[in-house]
């Protein structure tokens, strides 16, 4: 028989899953299967772009959900500055990590889409460059969170950088309007989308799949962050208790030391 670790209650599973996250996970998997069928099988090839249009079904949703991750980080950073409750700080970190995963996917799929469409994997276009800068900013934000800073300094600097993410997202989003760009303008955010039929359905299915996957990942990343926070708190409590015990032991030893080393008055007189 294998013994349970001493700090785990046997009837409570040690993981970040719950009934809600399992339902969400099943829904996400079903949506991913549906999106894959729509994107790779049922959707027709585009008249101009051919089969490369199938990259749009992953590129556009991952780019949009990268923005969502940044919005979550900025919102949670603001709430952390206001409320100072650890949950907001954990949520800010979770949003940024997901934002980085999805911005990297958007850059990779966009690059692969650009090669057959524009003839190049990369160009220093306004949209591409600003997206790359957003990725760098997210890496910097996550690196700053990991630095072993004084808590006062950390709590002042990290959320301020988090607040800067949404202005960058606005720059990325509007870059195709503000500067001349190879990248196409928005086609689905208007009330009259410039894409129709099966392609639009496939794209919407892609949004559903990526959105549900994003929600599942965010839920688990938040719980992992919460566990990291709790583990650090427990370590800190144990370190403080150890220091107090050490201080008490030394105080006791120093109080006992004069009595043990100094001679008894009677002995001193008698000798």
């Amino acid at each position, binding site marked *: 028989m294998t013994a349970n670790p001493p700090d785990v209650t046997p009837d409570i599973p040690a993981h970040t899953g719950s009934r809600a996250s399992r339902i969400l996970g099943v829904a996400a998997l079903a949506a991913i299967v549906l999106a*894959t069928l729509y994107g*790779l099988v049922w959707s027709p090839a585009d008249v101009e772009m051919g089969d490369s249009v199938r990259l749009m079904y992953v590129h556009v949703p991952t780019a949009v959900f990268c923005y969502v991750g940044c919005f979550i980080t900025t919102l949670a950073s603001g709430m952390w500055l206001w409320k100072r409750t650890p949950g907001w700080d954990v949520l800010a970190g979770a949003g940024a990590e997901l934002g980085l995963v999805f911005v990297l996917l958007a850059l990779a799929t966009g690059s*692969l889409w650009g090669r057959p469409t524009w003839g190049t994997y990369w160009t220093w276009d306004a949209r591409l460059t600003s997206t790359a800068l957003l990725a760098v900013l997210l890496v910097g934000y996550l690196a700053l969170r990991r630095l072993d800073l004084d808590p006062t300094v950390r709590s002042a600097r990290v959320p301020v950088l988090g607040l800067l993410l949404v202005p960058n997202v606005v720059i990325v989003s509007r870059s195709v309007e503000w500067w001349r760009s190879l990248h196409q303008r928005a086609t689905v955010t208007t009330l009259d989308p410039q894409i129709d039929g099966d392609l639009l359905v496939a794209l919407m299915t892609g949004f559903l799949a990526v959105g549900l996957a994003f929600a599942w990942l965010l839920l688990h990343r938040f719980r992992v962050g919460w566990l990291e926070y709790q583990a650090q708190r427990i370590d800190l409590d144990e370190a403080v208790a150890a220091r107090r015990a050490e201080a008490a032991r030394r105080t006791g030893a120093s109080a006992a030391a004069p009595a043990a080393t100094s001679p008894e008055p009677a002995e001193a007189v008698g000798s």
Partner: protein
Amino acid sequence: MSAATLAMTHAGYVAAGWGATFLLVGGYAVSLVLRGRKLSRQVPPEDRRWS
């Protein structure tokens, strides 16, 4: 279709894009589950509010 032919067509780019997406999202999901299991053993159940 050979790998070289696939790489020359749009299908190669499509496969690479979708494959990268599945790999990165799947790998990240697995890493989150593993990190969660490891950390859960260090934290008492009353601090795991979802349990």
